[in-house]
């Protein structure tokens, strides 16, 4: 039960697949940092993070959504982000159903989109409108 380990500093948890593009991760974290909310990046090998959700072992949107949900579950702030190996990303909240992320972006997203991903995660934490 590490999801609410009270020792860790409250942060948005970012789960990244090995090989996730560095610049995507950088901009996402920047988006949260600009809002004043810390992030904790955890590299999650393989695609096994979708284990709560056995049916979703394929790549793509399902994987990144499940990964973000797992990240949210392990965040003391209940908010998680995931970035997959090809740079797709999702924002999730621990109390939302696994298949309903707050937002997702595709691999062809822009710097502004990635920033927005981080900002959205931070704004959930701060209780501010997401856009």
């Amino acid at each position, binding site marked *: 039960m590490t999801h609410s380990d009270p020792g860790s500093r409250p942060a948005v948890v970012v789960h990244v697949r090995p090989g996730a593009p560095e610049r995507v991760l950088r901009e996402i974290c*920047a988006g949260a*940092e*600009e*809002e*004043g909310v810390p992030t904790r990046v955890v590299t999650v090998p393989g695609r096994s993070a979708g284990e709560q959700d056995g049916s979703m072992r394929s790549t793509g949107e399902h994987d990144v959504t499940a990964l973000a949900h797992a990240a949210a579950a392990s965040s003391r702030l209940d908010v998680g982000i995931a970035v997959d190996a090809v740079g797709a990303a999702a924002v999730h*909240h621990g*109390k*939302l*159903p696994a298949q*309903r992320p*707050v*937002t997702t972006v595709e691999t062809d997203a822009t710097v502004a989109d990635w*920033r927005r991903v981080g900002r959205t995660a931070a*704004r*959930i934490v701060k*209780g*501010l*409108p*997401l*856009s």
Partner: protein
Amino acid sequence: MPDRARLVVGVDIGNSTTEACLAAVAPDRTVSYLGTDLTRTTGVKGTPDNTDGVLTAVRGALRRAGRAAAELDAVLLNEATPVISGLAMETITETIITESTMIGHNPATPGGQGLGVGTTVSLTELDEIDPGPPVVCVVPHGWDFEDIASTVNAAVGRGVDVVAAVLAGDDAVLVANRLTRPVPVVDEVAAVEKVPLGMLAAVEVAAAGYTIRTLSNTYGLATVFGLDPDQTRHVSPVARALTGNRSAVVVRTPSGDVTDRRIPVGTLELRGSGKTLRVDLATGAEEIMDAVARAQPLEDAHGEPGTHVGGMLAQVRDTMADVVGQDGEEAGSPVEIAINDVLAVDTFVPAEVRGGLAGEMHLENAVALAAMVSTSRSRMRSVAERVAEELGVATLIGGVEGKMAVRGALTTPGVDRPVAVLDLGGGSTDAAELDREGRDTAVHVAGAGELVTKLIDSELALDDREVAENIKRSPLAKVESFFHVRHEDGTVQFFDEPLPSHVFARVVTLAPEGPTPIPTRHGLDHVRQIRREAKRRVFVVNAVRALRQVAAGGNLRTLDFVVLLGGSALDFEIPEMIADALAGYGIVCGTGNVLGTEGPRNAVASGLVAAHAAAAP
């Protein structure tokens, strides 16, 4: 006198709603009410298009009572005074920044904290600068936050005294977090390329939860820039424009300035009571309403041609001309169209500041006007003819709306003469009084539910009438998580299904379909206050104004019972606001309950029936 009960239906055609009241009138004139109905008014009130709505309402009332149209003895229509109301709003102040002196847009996430005063230098030239007096670094578009920080840090390392930064992008916190020496940073300055370089500038960022103290203080600016008294006098509007901000930038340029200019909007000419009064619209609502009171009873109003006021009033008058004039059949005597009442309300409009560098908004003063136009000509005859034709029933045009409303209001339990009614409609607030001796008077004053909606719409810069109407009609709530909202009274409501992310953390109105977000950065209480103030400025003001016109000697203390009627009396807070305001005059005030069952609806329709029964041959 007939020897059987006669079946009659009273019909009230309002600007918004058409109401019907079906009743049997016994030979001894006693009335048994059988059923009511209401529907949206079709077409503009007082025009033949109303027929459809009348038929719908009459048939609805018949159906509810289980009667057939063939049984009807008479349809009674209200006189439908051709009264329409117009709304207009004029901005009377404008804030202009010259020479890009000021950046006061209050970005959500400025960086650092404190005050920095120095000469503006572009980041691109920072590596050429020698150590010397303090500099404020201005960062053009396209720079990455790490590059900005390292360039600044390098300069600081060389001894350059960088005391603040101004950025194009939303990077202030990112940059501030990476500076070796912390300084205040203001970001999201869209037109950063227009910031004058080589000028003295001050950048201030307050701690979270606080507002700036130096740049919003005239003498703070004087201290920072070493201004003489004359220059100080000039920067005073800058300080005022920055009041309440968490961050700001002020650049000192040779003739930079912020002015709060009055926009000439023209003069309103009021004719009445044997005089003609002229009042400048820009002096605001108080002076205008003062003049209106002195010109009572108002015979007509005009706006100086070629000015904003002129345009406003001409437009209202034109609409009325359209309504009464299009139908050829009723031409003949020249139509007289007069403005019989004006309500002016001080308001404000959030407007973009001219010359701003970052889309600065400022609340500009504005005046909203509601005008009440009436004409000597009514087209109710043709409505009556069509109704008679369609139903095959004699259709009569009954008494004046206000007087009928009083009769209807008297069916409210606990009400007695002398009684006054306030019919709170969409376009006008109508008052009528019936005294102990049976004498009655009625007036229409300009401004009602539509004006409230309009004020909410413009003060919140919604530009969406429907959202504004929603805000008017229901309590607010704030979405506090994906699973719960907090109502404006503090109670919490949970949802089993997660709420959509576009409503997350938003102020919403709760429709049966779910929460509808209000597109505003303001908090719930700000929206609530705007809603309540709009209602107060229209309905409380008009209630007092209208009742004064019907009360004996203009004295509200002569009134005893006041009954609130009409669509806006269904509002969840307007009736209590009016009751509160009237309590001081010893008036018993409440929302009507026509026939003991209909609430504030159906007063005119049932009053038509009552009047008909009383006058029956």
